[in-house]
């Protein structure tokens, strides 16, 4: 019986939307106040959805403890209270929430049992969120 299990995590991080390939004016026009030189931050909500058979003995798709441990190891320990622009994974990429969402998906996919990750949703504020379901 296939079902899905979801878990939501909070992480706080700073970022600056800036593309070195663009001029200062172009960056400002593209990113507006998100281009502020000293950056700014968000309380991100990261929603992780895993799918798979409900184990007949446990009644679980996956144990929450294992999902938590993968999320902590692969994502939260790395990005919580960090400056995203300084993490090497964002070298050459603008840390928009779209890109952040894909980065988290790819890191988590490797940390979770193969094929189990269904989607990652990153909520940047209460009013905007991004979802990635893999390539």
């Amino acid at each position: 019986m296939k079902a899905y299990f979801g878990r939501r995590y909070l992480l706080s991080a700073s970022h600056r939307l800036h593309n070195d390939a663009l001029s200062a004016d172009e960056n400002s026009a593209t990113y507006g106040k998100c281009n502020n030189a000293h950056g700014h931050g968000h309380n991100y909500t990261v929603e992780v959805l895993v799918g798979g058979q409900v184990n007949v003995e446990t009644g679980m798709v996956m144990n929450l403890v294992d999902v938590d441990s993968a999320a902590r190891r692969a994502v939260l320990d790395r990005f919580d209270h960090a400056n995203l622009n300084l993490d090497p994974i964002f070298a050459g990429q603008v840390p928009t929430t779209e890109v952040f969402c894909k980065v988290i998906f790819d890191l988590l996919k490797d940390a979770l049992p193969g094929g189990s990750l269904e989607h990652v949703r990153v909520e940047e504020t209460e009013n905007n969120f991004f979802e990635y379901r893999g390539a």
Partner: protein
Amino acid sequence: MIFLTRRATFSAAHYYWNHAWTPEQNAQVFGKCANRNGHGHNYTLEVTVAGEPDPVTGFVVDLKWLKDVIEREVLEAWDHRHLNLETEEFRQTVPTTENIAIAAWNRLEKAINAAGGAKLSRVRVYETPEIFAEYRGPHEQVDVRGVKYRGEL
């Protein structure tokens, strides 16, 4: 196709226990959820139906009707109950959030689909705002591999 979702809440007690296992195995796999005195949650149930808006009313389904179906089929049986001790479906089955989502689907599917309009599309159950499970119906039961659980690690 329009997807319409109605939320409802219910409060219930439960514990996680596999009767085929020793107490030690239950404690190892289920942690504090295996406490036999039970604990409880405020659950949020999201019921999503799919269909086309009726040309006369513009409704996919009448929301009041859907609310009544959810109350009659699910809340009357589960709200302010102990799931392990007072409901048929969890006498032997562990009332995990996954199994609650599947059981809610089974309680709702017939009543919703029999009405002839929209079809049940998805049931999502939040155990807390941070933990939820989802079931999209038996038609999705293709070749899906199981995932190891903690006791097997």
